[in-house]
């Protein structure tokens, strides 16, 4: 989130230059109005299902499905973990996301550091190779992993879900960290070495603090991706249920409003994490001229 903070400053500077121009004619203003209204409509389109999901967590549905609005109720919020299978599925998802994100962040950050810090033979091919998993349809990734696990004769479950998630997370982590690391002043490392710090100390005291914000951003992104993944998980889960898989099954049999309550909790939790992340980043970089 904080990368956009840094771009605000020049944009404001450019506004100042623009004010020097003659006032725009009525037609252009009218066009500007329509453009803004159009953009607002698109944002509304993006926002509408989210609003419906949050609203339906307060629904008092009749029957097994929560598709039609029947009346306001706080019942589901009073007892969000009423269905043990749903709570278990959510815990399973959080466990998968935590383990997979940890592995992917380590592997992805290392390769990102290699690509940004060093110019070496083959780095271009590695760059391209990292993008390919992201441009492959999920159904093919899931299907191919299933054929691999069948070939190995492995039982599908927690372990295979984690292995699959790490696979698509590595590329996201590597690309996110890489984007954040570009343009850093790496001569600081040399300065630390010149001042007598050994490589380990240099890494811990200079390199790590520089790259931590990028790594945190990448970790949050890949955690969210893992939590949300449905297609690849469906192919690699066997009978294990993650939260999206539970919702998928529930959609066929019974969909209680608790599903919406948990979704709303995840939404609010993510927004809080992002808010805290950007507040922390602002605090960390206080007083610095970016």
């Amino acid at each position, binding site marked *: 989130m904080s990368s956009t903070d840094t771009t605000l400053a020049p944009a404001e500077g*450019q506004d100042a230059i623009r004010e020097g121009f003659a006032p725009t004619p009525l037609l252009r203003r009218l066009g500007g109005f329509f453009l803004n209204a159009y953009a607002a409509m698109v944002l509304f389109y993006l926002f509408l299902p989210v609003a419906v999901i949050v609203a339906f967590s307060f629904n008092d549905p009749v029957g097994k499905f929560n*598709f039609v609005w029947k009346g306001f109720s706080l019942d589901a919020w009073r007892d969000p973990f009423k269905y043990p299978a749903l709570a278990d599925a959510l815990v399973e998802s959080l466990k998968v996301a935590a383990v997979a994100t940890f592995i992917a962040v380590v592997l992805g950050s290392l*390769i990102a550091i290699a690509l940004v810090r060093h110019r070496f033979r083959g780095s271009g091919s590695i760059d391209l190779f990292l993008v390919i998993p992201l441009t492959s349809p999920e159904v093919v990734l899931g299907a191919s992993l299933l054929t691999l696990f069948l070939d190995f004769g492995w039982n599908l479950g927690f372990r295979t879900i984690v292995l699959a998630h790490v696979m698509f997370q590595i590329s996201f982590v590597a690309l996110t960290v890489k984007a954040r690391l570009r343009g850093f002043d790496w001569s600081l490392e040399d300065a630390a070495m010149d001042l007598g710090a050994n490589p380990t100390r240099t890494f811990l005291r200079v390199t790590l603090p520089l790259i931590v914000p990028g790594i945190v951003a990448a970790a949050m992104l890949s955690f969210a991706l893992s939590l949300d993944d449905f297609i690849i998980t469906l192919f690699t889960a066997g009978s294990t249920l993650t939260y999206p898989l539970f919702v998928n099954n529930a959609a066929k049999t019974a969909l209680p409003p608790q599903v919406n309550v948990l979704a709303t909790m995840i939404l609010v939790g993510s927004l809080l994490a992002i808010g805290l992340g950007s507040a922390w980043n602002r605090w960390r970089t206080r007083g610095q001229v970016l």
Partner: protein
Amino acid sequence: MAGTAAAGTRRRITPYLLSLPALAYLAVFFVVPLWTLVRTSLSTSTGSVYDPTLEFNWEFANYSDAFSRYDTQIVRSFWYALAATLLALVLAYPLAYVLAFKSGRWKNALLGLVILPFFITFILRTLAWKTIFADDSIVTSFFELLGLTTNGRILSTQWAVIGGLTYNFLPFMILPIYVSIEKIDPRLLEAARDLYAGGTRTFRKVLLPLSLPGVIAGSLLTFIPAAGDFVNAQYLGGVNQAMVGTVIQSQFLVVKDYPMAAALSAVLMIIILVAVLIYTRVLGTEDLV
């Protein structure tokens, strides 16, 4: 001197050591699976549904079977994905422009709104459209009033599926376009106007070419997942909206005809690769990384 030579060697091999774990991981869990997928697609399945055993014997007939049996779903997937990509582009471009140039201090909040749907499970977002497009909902009645529905229904039509696909992958279109428009110096647009270019011409000659990398990246990030998707077809479509992903999913997980399912996956992958290559060649941009 020997010390610096050793340090030099260490410096040279460091990037390879740092890259090795991730590359090894992707080799085992991305490249090898593609190989086992192709191998499976050329095998014959013997044994029961519950315990299929595969025998590799260059069974190319799986591919011709896949084409002849599921050509409708393959073709449909690409039309739906294409329609969703075009719709997403039309929706995303003006929004990305407004976000980049006209949102001022609201920029971060509005960007947050764009990624907001990501924090709700994909399945649930799709199910929400089921509520919105329900047969007696306000939205459906409104479209019916405009005469845009068939028999008063939106669900179980191709437009429900295309609408769902457009919705689910729209942020992937908005964000790359936003990033590439944001990099443009707005003074270039003013310069174009000063040189008497009209709005259309400024768009065609300045804005669009400069934002093309974002348009290309966004289209690929929308088209590829849309072409392989089966969730939208499953929840918003009917029997006649099944896509190639639907077939792959049910052949793998329900019918357990692994060779056929693998052949279909390979076909999907190859068609997408070819489409991506043609698309990027035609538009002449290769710096997507």
